[in-house]
């Protein structure tokens, strides 16, 4: 049963007050590596990054270095990048193609199925006494959602399907729209001086956009013909926040089924071409997702608990005060080349390390993180009270749904989800919402 109370009480859902110490406390940080990153299903990559047999891609699960590979039989696998001898890293590159991983320290060699295949002096130095079967690479559980690869260290974690729960109902409109799926390009990698949670909770923060990003909103209106986003529009908007199983989603309504999605890289000049593409692919999308999801809904900013941020973007914790951020572009494979190019450029130029949106976020998140280093500041709670009492279950949409598009409902619930992981002794103590939505159409978890 779910424990009431527990050691970590950081968010008050009635008042929206958050204890700032969660951003900087080294003990809390160490504990969340075990209890959050050691348990959750984490996004680690995409099957297109390891398309061919024996391809590998080096990634992370929290602070743990991980080799994502496709073994010789075509199966995806995720191994801790740690030689079972003394612990050296057996992969030192970002990516490659190999049947086996040879450790550069003493030469122990592991197959890409994880077996310790060879070591110098097995008979002589070890007198044949080494049990190689006990010295396989440490392997994570792996599953995929529409080509996106997830892994968890916890053998008791629920299935990925249950972990995503009905968040997938909305995620599908971005990631699972077409039969041929998506491909991932990237990542761009950089080190942000922020606690990882500030980057994640920002994903449902529509409130900051008209202020933080005003300079770019102005110039993209001037040069790209994109209508100016204002607070007033967002306050009046029909759009919603949805919170399901720790996953923060924002949902926007399309005016027309072929309306160009609100995505960086779409401009007044190429809007027509995007709309033609959405028209051409509508029948397929409707077959896969049913009419409501194919014609009416678009996924806005979102995060997948704990550290998947806005599409395939990862916030890897690097100590309480640093986050290594990975930015991939995720593109529908069937999209015409010139539209892919527009989205690829838009993706990096708006949201990468140089992004004219994203570059203005960093000092805010750092300011929020570092406020907890202030001896006086940390006596005061962070205020997340916006819209308290104005979110509830909805008859048509999954999870807890905000009345308005500008709300801190998702932030409050994100920190509540964090408490649930941190106060749990095992997955038995972590609540999961049962799936309740009707999934019209043929799309499944696997694509």
């Amino acid at each position: 049963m779910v424990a009431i109370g527990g050691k970590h009480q950081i968010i008050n859902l009635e008042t929206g007050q958050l204890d700032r110490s969660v951003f900087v406390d080294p003990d809390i940080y160490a504990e969340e590596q075990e209890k959050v990153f050691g348990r959750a299903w984490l996004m680690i990559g995409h099957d297109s990054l390891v398309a061919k047999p024996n391809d590998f891609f080096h990634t992370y699960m929290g602070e743990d270095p991980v080799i994502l590979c496709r073994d010789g039989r075509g199966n995806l696998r995720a191994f801790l990048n740690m030689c079972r001898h003394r612990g050296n890293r057996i992969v030192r590159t970002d990516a490659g193609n190999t049947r086996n991983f040879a450790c550069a320290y003493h030469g122990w060699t592991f197959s890409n199925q994880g077996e310790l295949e060879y070591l110098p002096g097995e008979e002589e130095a070890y007198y044949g006494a080494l049990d190689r079967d006990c010295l396989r690479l440490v392997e994570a559980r792996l599953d995929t959602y529409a080509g996106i690869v997830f892994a968890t260290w916890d053998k008791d974690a629920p299935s990925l399907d249950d972990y995503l729960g009905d968040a997938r109902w909305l995620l599908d409109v971005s990631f699972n729209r077409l039969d041929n799926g998506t491909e991932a390009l990237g990542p761009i990698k950089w080190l942000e001086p922020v606690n990882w949670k500030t980057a994640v909770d920002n994903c449902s923060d529509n409130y900051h956009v008209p202020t933080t990003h005003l300079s770019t909103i102005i110039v993209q209106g001037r040069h790209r013909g994109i209508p100016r986003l204002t607070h007033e529009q967002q306050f009046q908007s029909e759009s919603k926040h949805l919170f399901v199983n720790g996953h923060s989603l924002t949902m926007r309504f399309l005016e027309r089924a072929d309306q160009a999605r609100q995505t960086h890289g779409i401009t007044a000049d190429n809007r027509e071409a995007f709309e033609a593409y959405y028209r051409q692919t509508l029948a397929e999308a409707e077959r896969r997702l049913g009419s409501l999801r194919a014609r009416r809904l678009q996924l806005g900013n979102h995060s997948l608990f704990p550290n998947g941020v806005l599409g395939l973007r990862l916030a890897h914790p690097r100590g309480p005060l640093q986050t290594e951020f990975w930015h991939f572009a995720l593109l529908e494979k069937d999209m015409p080349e010139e539209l892919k190019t527009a989205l690829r450029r838009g993706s990096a130029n708006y949201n990468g390390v140089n992004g004219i949106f994203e570059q203005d976020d960093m000092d805010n998140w750092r300011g929020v993180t570092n406020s907890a280093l202030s001896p006086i500041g940390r006596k005061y709670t962070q205020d997340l009270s916006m819209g308290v009492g104005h979110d509830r279950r909805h008859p048509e949409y999954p999870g807890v749904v905000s009345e308005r598009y500008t709300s801190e409902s998702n932030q409050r619930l994100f920190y509540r989800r964090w408490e649930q992981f941190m106060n749990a002794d095992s997955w038995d103590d972590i609540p999961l919402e049962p799936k309740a939505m009707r999934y019209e159409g043929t799309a499944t978890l696997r694509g």
Partner: protein
Amino acid sequence: MEMQPATDSRLELWHELMQFYIREAWLLDERRFREWLDLFTDDVFYFMPRRLNIHRSEPERELSPVGDLAIFEDDKTYLTMRVERLETGMAWGEDPPSRTRHLVGNLVAEPQPGGEVKAKTAFILYRSHHETEENVFAGYRDDVLRPTAGEWKIARRTIVLDSNVILAKNLSVFF
């Protein structure tokens, strides 16, 4: 690239381009970004690939090719947006602004048939921001310079950083 014998005309070109790059560095460090923008042709491609950490045996994989996800993939409009947003006074990532120092050297110039010149330079870009923050970016730039109405303009710039994971909160400065 090969070092060519130093004829007078080659020396003259080298000297002229070095002055061009010194002027560019001062424009950037003095935050004269409009004038800096004028150094580029209207069809410029301003490109920074990702730099991968790969084995010595696979040099062809070290830089992400055009068409893959790049760090910068700007046309003149993107570059103009970057400059104009600074002028709004609300580009918070650069307001207050970075204090930068661009050191540019190691110039190698290779004239091309048709009048364009390939010019390669190495750079160190030091950036100080807010109270105590510091970044050092090192790398090289591969430019194509085009003579336009008696002036050199940059028609193509490829910037290669010597970093894999970029040890900075953002790249809100120009290279």
